[in-house]
């Protein structure tokens, strides 16, 4: 029996926009176990981003409980949440969110910078290891604007890996990339998943979701479907079959 990383019970989230109350989540139950690769799907406004923000401890639910690696986040303060994000979570964003005037290596070091237990030498070593894991060992001292979109997203993935989180949360991580680069990123994530990383991946693209292990589909604040992916695609193999038209 694998360890439960994420356990969500009757989660509700309301937004107040002026007089109107928007029910973004209307009682969601979800359980994610260690080593899973879960795709959260849904159209815009379905509540999937709200769900990810709460899973990422970036936002608090209106009601319901959320256990992350056995810790209930409901009663934590802002600073305790920050510490929790620092140790337990890794984020990958659609728009990469790298610091522009900072090298790839320093970008990856950033999360460790806020962990006072880690000395600068260890910080550098771990950042180098994370960049190697995403295949960018030769780009460590490049600035983000010297890197392609796919490379920037790899740096972002390295950053999410560097603190050895219990779960990596990716928000439309392939949304800004072309098909080929998307597949490369998915191949990387599949690889990491195989090595035991738990990944939650928000997307609205069905073909991207095909690479994951389980799909959770949201609509109007409810989970309407939850199913294991049958005939899971292997990104590496698909890459080989892609025509190499964009290479001159």
């Amino acid at each position, binding site marked *: 029996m694998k360890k439960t990383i994420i356990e969500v019970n009757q989660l509700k989230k309301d937004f107040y926009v002026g007089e109107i109350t928007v029910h973004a989540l209307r009682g969601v139950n979800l359980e994610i176990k260690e080593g899973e690769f879960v795709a959260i799907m849904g159209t815009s406004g379905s509540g999937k981003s709200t769900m990810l*923000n709460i899973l*990422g401890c*970036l*936002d608090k639910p209106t009601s319901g409980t959320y256990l992350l690696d056995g810790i209930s986040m409901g009663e934590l303060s*802002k*600073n305790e949440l*920050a*510490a*929790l*994000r*620092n*140790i337990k*979570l890794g*984020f990958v*964003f659609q728009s990469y*969110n790298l*610091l522009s005037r900072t090298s790839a290596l320093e970008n990856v070091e*950033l*999360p460790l*910078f*806020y*962990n006072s237990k880690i000395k600068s030498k260890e910080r550098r070593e771990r950042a180098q290891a994370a960049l190697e894991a995403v295949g960018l060992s030769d780009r460590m001292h490049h600035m983000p604007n010297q890197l392609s979109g796919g490379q920037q997203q790899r740096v972002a993935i390295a*950053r999410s890996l560097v*603190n050895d989180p219990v779960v990596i949360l990716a928000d439309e991580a392939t949304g800004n990339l072309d098909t080929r680069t998307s597949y490369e990123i998915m191949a990387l994530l599949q690889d990491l998943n195989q090595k035991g990383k738990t990944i939650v991946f928000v997307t609205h693209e069905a073909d991207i979701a095909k690479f994951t292990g389980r799909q959770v589909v949201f609509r109007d604040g409810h989970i309407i479907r939850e199913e294991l992916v049958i005939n899971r695609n292997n990104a590496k193999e698909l890459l080989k079959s892609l025509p190499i038209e964009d290479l001159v």
Partner: protein
Amino acid sequence: MLGIIIGVASVIVMLAIGQGSKKSIQDQMAGMGTNLIFAMPGSEQKGGVRMGNSDAQSMKLSDIDAIERDCPAISDVSPEVRSSGQAVVGNQNWPTTIYGVNNKYFNIRKYTLGTGRTFTNNEIETYAKVCLVGKTVVKNLFDKTDPIGQTVRFGNIPLLIIGILGEKGENGMGQDQDDLIMAPYTTVQKRILAITHIQSIAASAASESQNAAAIDQISKSLRNSHKLKDGAEDDFQVRSQSEMVQTFSSISDIMTALLGAISGISLLVGGIGIMNIMYVSVTERTREIGLRLSVGGRGSDILLQFLIESILLSVFGGVIGISLGIIATKVMATLMNWPVVITTFSVVMAFLVCSAIGIFFGWYPARKAASLNPIDALRYE
């Protein structure tokens, strides 16, 4: 950083110009001698007929002795007799004024001796035909020869030049203070004007603070010497330079107010510039703050980072601004020949105010951003 540099530099330049003008006005006033007191004959009555001021002959040399004896607040006193006329040397001539004075007069009027010597007591007692000349007179009467030892004729009296006065320049009202000849008062009285009275008395108070006392003592002494009864009108007027200085100091006060306004406005303008630049640059980094929050930075970590950044920025910018401001001031002083004064106060004030503004407006938007929900900060456009 640019905002801070420009802000600090412009404030320093503005203050340097303002203070320079103020100082040059003050210097001119000090050059006149702030302790100077003049006593002149006033209107007098002769059998009910009131006479004009200028032809009164009420002041005598004995008044000087009395003042020296009676007035502890007076340090130096000198009689003054004047005559205008043509000074002639060889085939050159020049209209000027001859002043008959004693040796203390130089100190009273803040004249310095350029070259040569001043009068001896013996020369004063014997109506010696000697004189000192001012720079303007020298320029107009002598080509390149050394005037000392030569003779200048004033009226028809030949006077031996024994010294040249140091240059004094124009006074606050544009009069050339170097266009004069100084001779012993006895010489001017007896040989040139043929009078026994004196035209005015020049004195200096022992210190500026004793000005009022000195005026009072001179008045009492003169009333006593002139045997005026209680209730009778003064037959003289006592004027002090500090009274004139008061008039000037109202100008100086206006300058001070102007200066205050200039520095206030330049600080405000510099401050607003700094404020905007810091505010915009920090607000632009809201997404960065969001990212730092989401990877586990606490609000306090981020605030500290931005505080340190804005302090460094302000201090570095301030130092560069100070150097730039001083250089610009010096350049302006050389190119445009403006009087400029850079005071420590203006540098410190410009630096402190600009840094304080820079630090505050680096810190304040960062605080706002750090207190946001991480997702809101991340999505900030």
